[in-house]
C-alpha cells in the first residue's frame, strides 16, 4: 500500500465517521463540533489533491466563520437536546430506508465506473494538478474568466448581510 493511499484512507475514515456522528448526536453543540472535524478531514483531502488554496479557505471560511456563526446561534438560543433518534425512528422509517437504498444504488454506480468509460482514464492526477491549485493560478483565472460571477457574489453577499440583519433584528424602540 502506498503512503498516499494510507493518508487517504485515514482522512476518509475520519470524514465519514465524523459525518455519521454529526447526524446522530442529539446535542447540537456536539454535532457542530463533529462537523468541524469533518471539515478538517476534507481540508486534508484537498491537500492530497494539490488544492492548497481551497484547503486553506476551507479552514478559514467554513470552520472559522460559518461554524462559529452556527455555534454562536446554538448558544444564543440555548437549545436543549433533541429526543434520541431511536424514539422517533418509527415515523421516519420508510423515508430513511428509501434514502439508504438510493445511497446504495448511487455508490454501486460510482464503483461501476471502474468498469470503463471516461473515468477509466482517471487513474492518476493530471500533471497540471500541481499547477492549478496555487494561489497565483487561481487568482489569475478568478479575475479573468470568472470576473463576472465574482462581482455577482458581492451583490449576493450584500443581499445576504442586509437580509440577515432585517430578519434577526428586534423592533426599533
Amino acid at each position, binding site marked *: 500500500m502506498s503512503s498516499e493511499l494510507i493518508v487517504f484512507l485515514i482522512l476518509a475514515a475520519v470524514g465519514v465517521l465524523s459525518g455519521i456522528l454529526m*447526524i446522530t448526536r442529539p446535542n447540537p453543540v456536539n*454535532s457542530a463540533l463533529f462537523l468541524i472535524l469533518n471539515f478538517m478531514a476534507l481540508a486534508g483531502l484537498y491537500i492530497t489533491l494539490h*488544492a492548497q488554496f481551497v484547503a486553506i479557505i476551507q479552514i478559514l471560511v467554513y470552520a472559522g466563520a460559518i461554524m462559529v456563526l452556527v455555534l454562536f446561534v446554538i448558544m444564543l438560543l440555548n*437549545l436543549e437536546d433533541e429526543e434520541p433518534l431511536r424514539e422517533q425512528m418509527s415515523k421516519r422509517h420508510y423515508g430513511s430506508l428509501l434514502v439508504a437504498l438510493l445511497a446504495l444504488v448511487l*455508490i454501486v454506480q460510482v464503483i461501476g465506473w471502474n468498469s470503463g468509460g471516461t473515468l477509466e482514464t482517471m487513474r492518476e492526477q493530471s*500533471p497540471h494538478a500541481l499547477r492549478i491549485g496555487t494561489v497565483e493560478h487561481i487568482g489569475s483565472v478568478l479575475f479573468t474568466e470568472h470576473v463576472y460571477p465574482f462581482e455577482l457574489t458581492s451583490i449576493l453577499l450584500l443581499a445576504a448581510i442586509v437580509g440577515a440583519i432585517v430578519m434577526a433584528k428586534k423592533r426599533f424602540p
Partner: protein
Amino acid sequence: MVPIHYYLILSAVMFITGVVGVLTRRNAIIIFMCIELMLNSVNLTFVAFSAYLGNETGQMFVFFIMAVAAAEAAVGLAIVIALFRNRQTVNINDVNILRW
C-alpha cells in the same frame, strides 16, 4: 496513486449522510449543518475532478459554493432566530400551522 473512484465514493457516502440527516433530524440548525455537509461533499467531487482532469474550473466553482454557503447560513440562521423569538422552538415538528 489513488484512483478517482475512491474520492467519488467518499463524497457519495458523505452526501448521503447529509441527506439522511436532513430527512431524519428535526432541529432546524442541525438540518442546516447537514446541508453544509452535502455542499462539502459536492466540493470534494469538484476538487477531485478538477485535479484528475487538470482543469481549474472545478476549483473555481468550489469558491463560489463556499461564498453562497456562507450567505445562506447567515440568512438561514437569522430566520431561525426570528422564528425562535416568535415561537420559542426550532423543532420543525412544532412548526406546523400550515398543512395541506
